[in-house]
């Protein structure tokens, strides 16, 4: 039963080795989908290329449904999985700062590593920026520690917060994603850009 690391089916070192292979899959899919190009990534914010929207939400839905099915079959214990904690102010403020960084820099951390791996110099510079940004956060930590730790809400699932089952939430996410895919396809025709 999964997760394998929790049920002692694999050792810590095996887990790290498998992390490397999971990473290869991650990098391969990102690069092959065009996530090594900042102009493709930024396209989602202008409508000319919505690959980010499509890949991101298809991936989230696939994993979400996969987890629900594995749990349903009794192959996976969702109770011991890592669920990201919720701190309302830091999630919103951190997200806003990242959003600004995304449109200015044209990458997020994962895609910058991916783009740097095929030789994009702008991605390498972005990575230097990441280092500086994290360093600044670390050094100035006492200044923003209060905001960082404010309003801890535990690790709620959005389905719990909305008072619905996981399955119903999954269905809603699929419907919303389908509508967004449709808008994305429309936008790509409406706001075309020359070859890049």
């Amino acid at each position, binding site marked *: 039963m*999964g*997760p394998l*690391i929790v049920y002692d089916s694999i050792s810590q070192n095996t*887990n790290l080795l498998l*992390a*490397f292979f*999971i990473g290869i899959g991650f*990098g391969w*899919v*990102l*690069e092959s*989908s*065009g996530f090594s190009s*900042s*102009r493709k990534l930024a*396209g989602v914010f202008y409508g000319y290329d919505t690959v980010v929207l*499509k*890949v991101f939400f*298809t*991936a989230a*839905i*696939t*994993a*979400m449904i*996969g987890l629900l099915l594995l749990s349903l079959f009794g192959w996976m214990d969702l109770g011991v999985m*890592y*669920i*990201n904690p919720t701190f309302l102010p*830091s999630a*919103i403020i*951190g*997200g*806003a*700062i*990242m*959003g*600004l*960084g*995304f449109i200015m*820099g044209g990458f997020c*951390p*994962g*895609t910058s*590593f991916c783009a740097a791996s095929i030789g*994009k*110099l*702008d991605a390498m*510079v972005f990575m*230097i920026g*990441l*280092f*500086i*940004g994290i360093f*600044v956060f670390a*050094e100035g*930590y006492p200044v923003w520690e209060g905001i960082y730790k404010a309003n801890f809400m535990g690790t709620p699932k959005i*389905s719990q917060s909305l008072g619905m089952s*996981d399955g119903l939430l999954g269905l809603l996410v699929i419907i919303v994603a389908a509508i967004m895919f449709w808008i994305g396809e429309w936008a790509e025709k409406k706001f075309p850009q*020359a*070859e890049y």
Partner: protein
Amino acid sequence: MEKEIKSKKTKYWNPYIGGVLLGIVLLASNFISGRGLGASGAMKSVVVTSVDAVAPKHVEKAAFYKEYTESHGTHPMKSWLVYEVLGLIVGGFLSGAVAGRLKFKVEHAPRITSRRRLIFALMGGVLFGFGSQMGRGCTSGAALSGMAVMSLGGFITMASIFGTAFIAAYFLRKNWIQ
């Protein structure tokens, strides 16, 4: 002929197929390791390791590094995310090699110079690095992986990232579109 080769070089996967495959990678990560994918955390390990090499006393005293050491225990580079990101770089390189996309270059829109692109890349990186710490993870760790496990915080971070980028995109349109 040359045009044909060029269009072949920029050929990418169908995004929905790419998305399903990425979802399967994320699912495998959860099934094997009980956690999602990530990226910014590996850079945090690099920062902690670098600062520790230059000023070990500082790492013992300053609050951020103390909390990091307490929650991790092992050497910062011996972390799941560091191995995963090393794999990411290898995987990206292999995909680029197979598709013929390996090339040193600065990619930018026609209306701006390479210099401007690099300055904005640096500033964007600084903001993203800072924001990923404030938001406890980036697009991979907080938004994508958080969404897969239906974390409320993951959804909020995702909405905040894309919402803010959407609004700011109007003011930065010169950098990207004609």
